[in-house]
């Protein structure tokens, strides 16, 4: 069971603003999904290694050679706000 306080805590971690209604819905729906998911708690998995990659591969390394990157104007082309050739954002100061 995920209660309202937990929903609000997770929403803060996830940088999501939720309406009051959404907090209630989320609490109900996440609890239902987790009830189902928690069945994996019944499995004996102590000596089982966790999957890190499904296909056996070794580290993919490449030479560290500089190549041209995206030109600045292209990188900024989709920006909601551009300030001094950079991405503009509101002040991080406390509101």
């Amino acid at each position, binding site marked *: 069971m995920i209660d309202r306080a937990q929903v609000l805590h997770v929403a803060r971690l996830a940088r999501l603003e939720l309406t009051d209604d959404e907090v209630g819905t989320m609490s109900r729906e996440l609890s239902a999904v987790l009830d*189902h998911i928690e069945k*994996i708690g019944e499995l004996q*998995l102590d000596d089982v290694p966790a999957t890190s990659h499904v296909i056996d591969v070794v580290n993919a390394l490449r030479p560290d050679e500089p190549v041209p990157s995206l030109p600045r104007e292209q990188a900024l082309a*989709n*920006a909601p706000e551009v300030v001094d050739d950079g991405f503009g954002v509101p002040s991080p100061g406390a509101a």
Partner: protein
Amino acid sequence: MSADLIALSARDAAEQIRHGRISADELFAAYRERAAADAAKGEDGLNAYTWVADVTPSAPAASDAAPLAGVPLAVKDLFCTEGVPSQSGSKILAGYRPPYNATVVDKLASAGTTLLGKTNQDEFAMGSSNENSAFGAVRNPWDASRVPGGSSGGSAAAVAAGLAPWALGTDTGGSIRQPAALCGIVGLKPTYGSVSRYGMIAFASSLDQAGPFARDVTDTALLYRHMVGRDGRDSTSLQHPDEIALPKGVDLKGIRLGVPEELIGEGVESGVREAFNQTLALAEQLGATVETTHLPHAPHALSAYYLIAPAEASSNLARFDGVRYGLRADADDLLSMYTRTRAEGFGPEVKRRIMLGTYALSSGYYDAYYGRAQKVRTKIAEDFRSAFDSFDFIVTPSAPTVAFKLGEKTADPLEMYLQDFCTIPMSLAGIPAISIPNGLSDGLPVGFQIAGPAFSENRLLDAAYVLEQALGFDGSKVRA
């Protein structure tokens, strides 16, 4: 004339262009007109496209280097296409035009395909009905009151309805195979890593896999052949050990098919089970042996998936913060700008999965949830490995039901998640699986899934081809 062009398979169209019997421009115009006519109807049409090309692009001349010259291609919205909207079905990316192409989009352009349009999808590929798109639901060409499946619903509907000869999709837990099944076409989820993920807007990186949709197995193989390859820009991409061949074969002599009891039980509709059993009988007539087998951990696959995929999604979707592209909400301070942008930009299913994933990764829960799920994943992969000691392929229905009504499953997330019950185990194991149409139930298409070991695509396509020829499924009436 236009109807004749639409009736051609992609392979035949490429052949005819090469021999100068039809022109690439004519072919493109015929498809463009149909795609644009549907797009103009918005949600009164199939709503398969979110963008359709308005001019005919110039195709390279047909040659050995560009064997697909002039065959139009529909591309799922989440693939980045330079200068063309790539919104992953989300309001948070509304209007986003990437400055580069996904590697697979570039590769297919080099092979000669032309970009016909971008197809509608569930937001960030999260969904099994294509009702989670910020650009409206997609409808099933077999019955407009029903869903096409998802998340690649636009691609599947476009191919089934003859609004594209073939299309690109992605499959994380079933997002190619399930819509292919519900729309009566062929869809392949390849071996994990065989196609570059560079430029695919990420959902769950350890599962996301690009693959082809086509009307038949031959076109599926032909498109996939030009998608594979290691890419320096995706360190998880792998060189496929084989060149992908066009499928062949006349029988299934010596082929051992395993039917996992865990994936054909309750939840599978009677009409779907009937079509499945008929296809098994047909496979036996063609020389295959069919035996029941077990994937003991498969019943836990859905649980593992709904921890791993949302956990990875919550991390991948952290980048959508209103700073560099897409939507930005008004706010006086930075934190409020983030939280409001994400509140306004993401739809309910995406929020639900971000919350679930963030919870599963949060302090104190990581080992119990994400860690455990990755162990279950190991067991599922082992189940398949040991099954493939005794069988060439594992076969199941592609989806437990036929296409359901719009709105029928939106109220209960868990019921929607169960749509992918038969497809998720293969995704977790990273192995290839194909869905081919194997008949109708109450007038709606049913899909047959064949899964093989990693990199077995050539054998898988051959077996699918033999079955396809024997089944003789005809989807042409919905292309009229």
